Each structure stands twice: as C-alpha cells, then as structure tokens.
C-alpha cells in the first residue's frame, strides 16, 4: 500500500513538473513574441494615428447606429419571415424558402452592390445609410428566421395541443407557451448571429458609408500605419459585440428551467 501511495505521489509530482515546464516554455515563447513586436512598434506611429481619433470616433458612432438599427430591424424582419415560412399558404412558404436560399447562398458583398446599384437606384432610395441598413437587416433576418424556426420546431407537439385545449388562440400560444420555451435554446446562436451582423456592417464601407472600417482605411491611407490603424478597428467592434454575448449569457441564466 505504501508503495502504491508513493507511486501515485511520484506520478503527481511528475504531472505537476511537466505542467510547470510546459507553461515555462509557453511563457518564454510569448515573451519573445512580445519583445519582437515591441521592437517594431514605434510610438511616433501611434501618436500619428492618434491625431485621427475623431475620424475613428465618428466611424464608431456610425457603426454603432447601423448595428443597433439593423439589429432591431433584422429581429423584426426575422419574425415576419418565420411567420411566412410557417404559413398555411403553400405558395407563400415556397416563396419564402426561395428567398432564404438565395440570400444564404450568395455573398453579402454581391448583395450590397446589387441592392445599392440596382434596387435602391430603381426605387429612388437616395440615402446610402438607409440602403446599407436595409440590406444588412434583410441579410441577417434570413439567418435569424431560420434560427427561430429551428428552436420553435423542437417544441414537442403535446405542448401545442395542450395550449389549444385550454383555449389559447394561436397568438396566445406563441406568446405564453412557445416563445418562452424557444427563447433559451435560441439565445446563444442568436447572440452569435447578432455579433456577425455587427462585423458584417464593415462590408458597407464598399458603398462609401463612413463607418468604422472605412474610417480605419482612410487613416491607413493617410498615415501608412496599417497595424496602428486597424488595431483600434478590432477594439471598436469588440466594444459592440462583447455586451451582446454578455447579455445573452445573463439572460440564459435567468431563463433556466
């Protein structure tokens, strides 16, 4: 028995020893990287980019506005698409399916260009910002609709029947029985989709909307400081996406069954 004990102790020591050694190696490699990088960092470049902080700030505000508006609009449109997708009219269901497949199967970049140069032009929509928000919301709403549909359809049939049997209308069934149950499994994927939406707004720079990415591109063009121009860009998006993940996690905990 003492032998066994000693063996397990020795095994333990071996384990901790190797963990220590491994972390030492990792830390030293990381230190090396940081050292190498810091050799390349010149503070004058950061200071130069710092002069353009107003450009970043305005770009970030624009991105913030686009994100929040598109976020709300895409949730609303998503709910509409789900309703159409689950409608009792077969033609409406098929049409929705077609739209979903086309939007999901083509690049957002193409959609932005097509919508901006063909559709918006055709219907006389002047504002670039409104066009950008619309196309972004529409693109995202298709994904959101499919997420909502997925989480609704896993709810067992007896739940629908029980709701019907106690005399709830279809709207009441969704409001009091189905959606509260669908929300929890929906949250993590919805949070991911909304974070994607925020990052996808960067593509709107292609039609000249002066959001954060365009701001970074402009600062880069003016200063030739690429890393220093795009680092604030990443930070700017993180400030927008992190609260969403956080809120979703908090809500998820609150909704625990």
């Amino acid at each position, binding site marked *: 028995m003492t032998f066994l004990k000693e063996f397990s102790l020795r095994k333990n020591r071996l384990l901790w020893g190797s963990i220590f050694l491994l972390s030492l190696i990792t830390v030293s490699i990381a230190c090396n990287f940081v050292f190498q990088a810091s050799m390349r960092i010149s503070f004058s470049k950061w200071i130069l980019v710092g002069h353009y902080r107003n450009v970043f700030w305005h770009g970030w505000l624009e991105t913030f506005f686009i994100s929040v508006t598109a976020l709300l609009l895409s949730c609303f449109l998503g709910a509409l698409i789900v309703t159409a997708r689950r409608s009792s009219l077969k033609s409406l269901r098929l049409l929705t399916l077609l739209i979903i497949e086309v939007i999901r199967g083509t690049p957002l970049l193409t959609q932005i260009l097509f919508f901006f140069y063909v559709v918006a032009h055709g219907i006389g929509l002047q504002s670039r910002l409104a066009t950008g928000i619309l196309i972004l919301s529409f693109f995202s709403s298709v994904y959101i609709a499919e997420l909502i549909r997925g989480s609704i359809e896993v709810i067992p049939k007896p*739940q629908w029947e029980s709701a019907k049997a*106690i005399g709830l209308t279809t709207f009441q069934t969704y409001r009091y029985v189905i959606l509260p149950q669908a929300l929890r499994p929906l949250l993590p994927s919805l949070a991911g989709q909304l974070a994607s939406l925020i990052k996808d707004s960067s593509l709107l720079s292609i039609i000249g909307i002066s959001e954060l990415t365009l701001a970074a591109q402009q600062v880069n063009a003016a200063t030739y400081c690429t890393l220093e121009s795009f680092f604030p860009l990443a930070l700017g998006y993180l400030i927008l996406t992190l609260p969403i993940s956080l809120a979703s996690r908090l809500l998820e905990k609150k909704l625990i069954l």
Partner: protein
Amino acid sequence: MNITIAHLHKSFLVHHRLKNLFDDLSFSITFQHVLALLGPSGGGKTTLLRILAGLEIPESGSLTVDGKNVRFDTKSLYHYRQKLGVVFQQQNLFPHLTALENVMLPLTVVQRLEHAVAKKKAEEILDQLQLSAHQHQKPHQLSGGQGQRVAIARALITRPQFLLFDEPTSSLDPEMKSEVLELIAQLRSFQIPLVLVTHEMEFAKKCADQVIYFSNGKIIDQGATKHFFSHPKTEELKRFLELTRGVDHL
C-alpha cells in the same frame, strides 16, 4: 349529459394512403358522471375523444353535446374548446411555468381574470387536490403522478362543461397510476361529467356509469357498466375482457 354523433366520417393518411377510421359512425349516449371509452389500440377511441375535444375535425357528420350542435369551423371550435377540460397522456404542463402558474394560465389569459383572483382560485384547487406543497415547483421537479394531477387541476380550474381524459395514467408506473386514478374517482364530487379513454378495466368497472367499446372504428357494444361487464355481447368483446382481466391481475 348527452353526446350524440351522427354519420361521422374520419380518415387518415397512412403511408400516403387514405384509410377510413370512422365510416358512418352514429351513436347517442347519456351519462351522469363518467363515460369510459374502451377497446384495443388503434380502434378509434382516442380519435373520437379528440373530435369531442374539438382538436380533430371530421370530414362529415355531426356532433351534438347536450342538445347543442358543435360547428367545426375554426372560430366556433375555439369557443367550444374554452368550455372543456382536456388531459393528455403526457407532457400536459408547460415546463417553463410552475405548477401554480400552469393552473392559473387559463384564468389569466383565456378568461382574463385579475392576477390576484386567478391566484386565489388556483391555490384553492391545488389545495383541494392535495397539491399545495408542490405549487411552486416546475414540472420537471414533479413526479409523473403529481404532474398529471396538476394537469387535472388545470383542466378543472375553468369549471368546464365536461372533462376529457386521454389515457391519463398510461405513461405512469403502477404506484403513480393509483394516485391519479384515486383522484379521478374523487372528481365525482366536482359534478363535472368526464369522458375517459382508458386501458384500466378494473377502474372503468368501478368508476364509469356508461361504457362504449370500440374496435376498428366501430362500436361493438355500449351501455351501462354493470351490464356491459357481466353480459358481454360479442365473442370479441368477451375475449378482450378476459385478456385484460388477466393483465389487471398481473
């Protein structure tokens, strides 16, 4: 109460083929407390209960409850269902609500009662059914038997015109079965007629005052319970009763 059905047709798609379940089904039955629908699986008793509950629409035929004709359009059925209390085999309760909230839901949402009034009523009925101790538990914290008892409380809370139970004990183990069956037996005191689909022959014998026996979508026998069990009409019914008697003693 009286239930009359005339020339009822109902078919289902089975493997892309239309299969007739009820072909010109007609009957009329009057009972005071409990009507039991018996018969082998697939015989049509659950479908009949679902038609009675306004959850399934027949292709043709008429349903009359206490002299009133039931119309099968969406709006009329919606109003008709509000006057009934239904309990299914399982998963009756809404998992995101507590037992109390489950029982309150028909009052607050359908009948639009004030929250405090609904709460008082729900607490009263849970107390009557000895479920007070569990009122703040969610369905997954309840045993199968307790869950079904809460479902029965929810069906009772609106004081429905009549109750419809579809094999409420079939998914329970024997011990829980007896606690639910005991409760159903007590329901007589509520004076609300009950239509019950069940496989529990002994229970039907004890509790039901009228019985309908279905097989292949047809009524083989119907009548007062005593007479039904002591003088089975056909050979098939005799065999069925003997078989289930054997099962009940197991």
